[in-house]
C-alpha cells in the first residue's frame, strides 16, 4: 500500500524542496522550524476540547495553589446554627452541616486533591519511568528483577491494595495516600516505558548513534527516552484524573483523608447521604471533581492524538 501511505505522507509532510545542491527549499510557505512537540502543541491549541479542558485544569490548579484568589471566606469559620443553609448570592454554595461556607470549603478542598494527584503522578513518572527505562534498556537480569517486583505490585488490584495499605498504615494524610497511590501505580508507568524503550532501542537512529560511538547514557536520555516518553505523558495525564477520583473513593471507603482536613473526597463522602434532601451538598463537589477528572482524560486523549504519528 506504498502508494496510498506515501500519498498521505506527501500530503502531511510539508517539504517540497529541491533535492539537488542548487534547489532552494520552500516548505509549503512556512519558514519556521517545527519539532514534533511544536507540531503537537499547534494541533492541541487548535483543538477546542483540549483548550477548554486545559483552562478548567488551570482554574482548578489556581484554586489549589492560591485559594485566596477565589474566596476571602475562612473555610474554618463555622457555626452549627447555619447548618445546611441553601446556596444564596453571598454564599454561592450554601453551608455544610457544620455551618461552614461551602464555597470556601470547595476552594480549599481543591488543594489536597490536586496535591495528592500531582505528587503521586510525579512520583510514578520519575520512579516508574526510571525503572522502566533501566529494565527495557539493559534487559537480562535487571529486567527480570524489576519485572518481578512490578508483577508483585501489579497483582494487587488497585483499590484493594490501597485499602490494605491504608488500613494497616493507619495514618491517613496527604503523604500516606500519595505514597500508597504511588506504590500501586508505578508499575504501570514502568511497564509502558519498558515496552516503548524495548521497541525503540533497536530503532535505526539509536543504532546510528551507537555506531557513531555514543555511550549508554546518551543513547538512553537523548535518543530512547524522548521518543518513549509520549505514551507515558498521555498515561500520566489520564492518571492525574484518576488519582483525583481515587482520593475521593478512598475517603468514601473510610481509608482516605480524615476531617478536619478539607478535600473534595471528604465533601462528597460526608454529604452523599444528604443528597436526597439537599442535593447541592453533593452536586457542587461532585461537579468539580467530575469536571477535573473529565478534563484530564480529555486532555490525555487529545495529547495522544497529537503525539501519535498514526493520527498525523
Amino acid at each position, binding site marked *: 500500500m*506504498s502508494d496510498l501511505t506515501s*500519498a498521505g505522507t*506527501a500530503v502531511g509532510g510539508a517539504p517540497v524542496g529541491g*533535492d*539537488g545542491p542548487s534547489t532552494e527549499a520552500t516548505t509549503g510557505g512556512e519558514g519556521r522550524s517545527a519539532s514534533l512537540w511544536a507540531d503537537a502543541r499547534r494541533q492541541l491549541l487548535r483543538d477546542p476540547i483540549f483548550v477548554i479542558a486545559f483552562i478548567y485544569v488551570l482554574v482548578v490548579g489556581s484554586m489549589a495553589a492560591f485559594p485566596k484568589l477565589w474566596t476571602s471566606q475562612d473555610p474554618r469559620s463555622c457555626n452549627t446554627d447555619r447548618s445546611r443553609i441553601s446556596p444564596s448570592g453571598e454564599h454561592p454554595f450554601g453551608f455544610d452541616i457544620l455551618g461552614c461556607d461551602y464555597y470556601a470549603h470547595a476552594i480549599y478542598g481543591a488543594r489536597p486533591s490536586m496535591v495528592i494527584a500531582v505528587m503521586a503522578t510525579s512520583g510514578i513518572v520519575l520512579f516508574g519511568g526510571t525503572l522502566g527505562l533501566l529494565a527495557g534498556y539493559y534487559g537480562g537480569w535487571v529486567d527480570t528483577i524489576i519485572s518481578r517486583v512490578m508483577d508483585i505490585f501489579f497483582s494487587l488490584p488497585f483499590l484493594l491494595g490501597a485499602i490494605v495499605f491504608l488500613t494497616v498504615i493507619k495514618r491517613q494524610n496527604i503523604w500516606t495516600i500519595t505514597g500508597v497511590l504511588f506504590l500501586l501505580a508505578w508499575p504501570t508507568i514502568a511497564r509502558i516505558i519498558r515496552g516503548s524503550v524495548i521497541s525503540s532501542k533497536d530503532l535505526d537512529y539509536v543504532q546510528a548513534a551507537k555506531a557513531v560511538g555514543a555511550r549508554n547514557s546518551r543513547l538512553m536520555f537523548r535518543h530512547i527516552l524522548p521518543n518513549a516518553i509520549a505514551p507515558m505523558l498521555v498515561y500520566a495525564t489520564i492518571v492525574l484524573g484518576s488519582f483525583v477520583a481515587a482520593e475521593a473513593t478512598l475517603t468514601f471507603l473510610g481509608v482516605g483523608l480524615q476531617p478536619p482536613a478539607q478535600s473534595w473526597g471528604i465533601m462528597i463522602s460526608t454529604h452523599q447521604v444528604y443528597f436526597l434532601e439537599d442535593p447541592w451538598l453533593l452536586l457542587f463537589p461532585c461537579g468539580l471533581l467530575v469536571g477535573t477528572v473529565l478534563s484530564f482524560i480529555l486532555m490525555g486523549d487529545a495529547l495522544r492524538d497529537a503525539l501519535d504519528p498514526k493520527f498525523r
Partner: protein
Amino acid sequence: MSTDVNVKLEALAGVDPNALPLQVKDLHVEFRTRNGIAHAVNGVSFDLRAGETRAILGESGCGKSVTAQAIMGILDSPPGFITGGEILYRGVDLLKLPESERRKVRANRIAMIFQDALSALNPVFTVGFQLAELFRKHRGMSRKDAKVRAVELLDLVKIPAASQRVNDYPHQFSGGMRQRVMIAMALALDPEVLIADEPTTALDVTVQAQIMALLAELQRERNMGLVLITHDMGVVADVADRISVMYAGRVIEEAGVNDIYATPAHPYTKGLLESIPRLDLKGHELSAIKGLPPALTNIPPGCAFNPRCRYAQDVCRKDPAPPLYQVSPNRTAACHFWKEVKGDE
C-alpha cells in the same frame, strides 16, 4: 472451471461478452484530508484486452495504487472519493452498480494481488480458511469441499506439501510462499482481470523471478488480463505488453513496451530510463532527474513535471496540462514537445 465463468456471466445484467474486460475512462480520485484535498488520480484512462499485460509504471505517490483500489472498489472512503470517470467491465460501468452487485465482480471477475502479502493476509486465520472462504461465500460450497479446493489452489501455485500447509497461518510462510498464497487467492474464482499491485517489490530477485514466471504461466493458461502496477523498469520490460507511465496522478505516456524503451516520448519516461543503473551495461553515467515529485495537494499548474523538466518552456508552466498527443497510431504522450524528446537521443 469454464462452467464457473458462464455462471458468472449470466449473473451480471448488461454484460457484453464482446466488450473489453476492463476499460478505465478519465478516472478522478481525491483524498480529502485535514491538510487539504490531495488529487491522487487526475483523469486516468486505459484499457485492457483479454490475455494482455498492461503495466502501470510510476514512482511512489503517483497514484497508481489508488487507481487499482478504485477499480476494485476498495478505496478507503473517507478520505478517498471517486469524483469522476468510468470503470467498465465488459461494458458495464462498475461505478454505477449497487454495492451488492459490485461485490460480485470482485474476486469473481476482477481480482487483486497486494504488495505486502504478510499484512494483506489476515494473521489470525489459516491460509486454508482464507482461501476456502471464497468458495464458501461465492460458490456456496461446504466447508469440506472448499478446503479441498483450497489445497488444489495451493498446489496450483506450486506450494510444496499443500495439504499440510493449508492449515498453517500466514506468518509461518516465507515471503515468496506468502505471495504465492496471495496469487492463489486471487485466482481462486478464475477472474478475467488480475490487478497485481507491486507483487514482487518486497521480494528477493530470485524469488521475484519465480513469482513472475508463475504469474506469466497462469496468465497464459487462463488468457487473463493483467494490470501490473510497479516501479521496476526491469520487470516491466520483461513481461508487459503495453505500458502506462503515471506522474502526479496522470498518465503521461502510453505505448507498447518496445516503443517506450526504445524512444520515450515524454521527458519523465526518458529521465527514468536514464537514471537506472543497468546490469548489462557497465558504469555509464547515471543522469538523475533533478528535484522531487510534487505533493498531490499542490500540483504545479500546467504540466506537473515542468519544474523538473529540462525541455520545459513557458507553455508547460501554464494550464491546461498538456493533452495526450497521438505520437503514433498506438501511442500517446502528454508532452508539448514530444517530438523533440523522442528525437533527442
